């Protein structure tokens, strides 16, 4: 099975990476960009249940104070 885990900044935590990408794009003349947010994705393969992946997020992949995570299966 293949799972996709997406880690993003928690609401309320400033997404500095997204912001600096936004300003980088503006410098290059892309004036129509209004907002950029950044996230990290892990593709995890193995004989794993949704619960296993959930546990990985809780135990390693996400920090609950700064990050949100979402899990989806990749078919």
């Amino acid at each position: 099975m293949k799972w996709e885990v997406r880690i993003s900044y928690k609401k309320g935590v400033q997404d500095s990476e997204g912001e600096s990408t936004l300003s980088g794009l503006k410098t290059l003349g892309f004036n129509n960009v209004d907002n950029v947010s950044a996230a990290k994705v892990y593709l995890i393969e193995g004989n794993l249940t949704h619960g296993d992946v959930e546990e990985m997020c809780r135990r390693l992949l996400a920090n609950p104070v700064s990050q949100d995570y979402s899990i989806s299966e990749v078919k």
Partner: protein
Amino acid sequence: MAYKVCIIRAPGTNCDRETAMCVESQGLEAEVVHVKRLMEGEIRFSDYDGLIIPGGFSFGDHVRAGALLGKILKERFGDELAQFSSDGKPILGICNGFQVLVECGLLPGNTAQSALTTNLSSRFECRWVDLSVETSRCIFTDGLSGSIRLPVAHGEGRFLVTAGELKELTNTGQVVFKYAQKNGGSAGGSYPENPNGSIDDIAGICNKEGNVFGLMPHPERAFYRFLHPRWTKSDESESFGDGYKIFNNMAEYIMR
């Protein structure tokens, strides 16, 4: 018998040598220990009188800075470390070590949680900062007051906690250092005085008991005055720098 301090390293840890040197200059024995040796059961934390997690990029800081080493310590050695800490033995986390302490839950301690995330500038920052010494119960900053200057060098140093816990940390005297203006006044979140955007300008915190201390700045890089960026202005090249006292306190605390 000499007192022994364990300096933990993982692949990518890179401030262990200079940190060990500061410890040894205080008459303690420093042993740099690969975390693998702990995992293989070759040695135990209880063999030591103090513990330091030095700076660097443990495991490449992949996933999050300090996360992997933090989780290994938490899941494999949680009880041992809790014991170590409740025995009152000192634990110091510098930069990456602070990140590790936060990830493994030794800081802020109890059930509170915090995070150190990407700098607001979104890049690595190597610079000297002014720090105000807050009244705290930290055993490492005994005798320090007013403001001091130490260097930071990190990409993920933005300290975060919930508003409720922030109040709690402040009330219990767990906030040890705050980024400050040159004159000692509050940095008020302004860059570059606060180099990473930490909440409430927090640069270092300790646990409730004061024996576990984590900070983003590097005291070992300010151990001697000749490492200060303006040492050539005054003739004090041979004296100690602002980082000295932290190691000195650790030693005195251990040997007390």
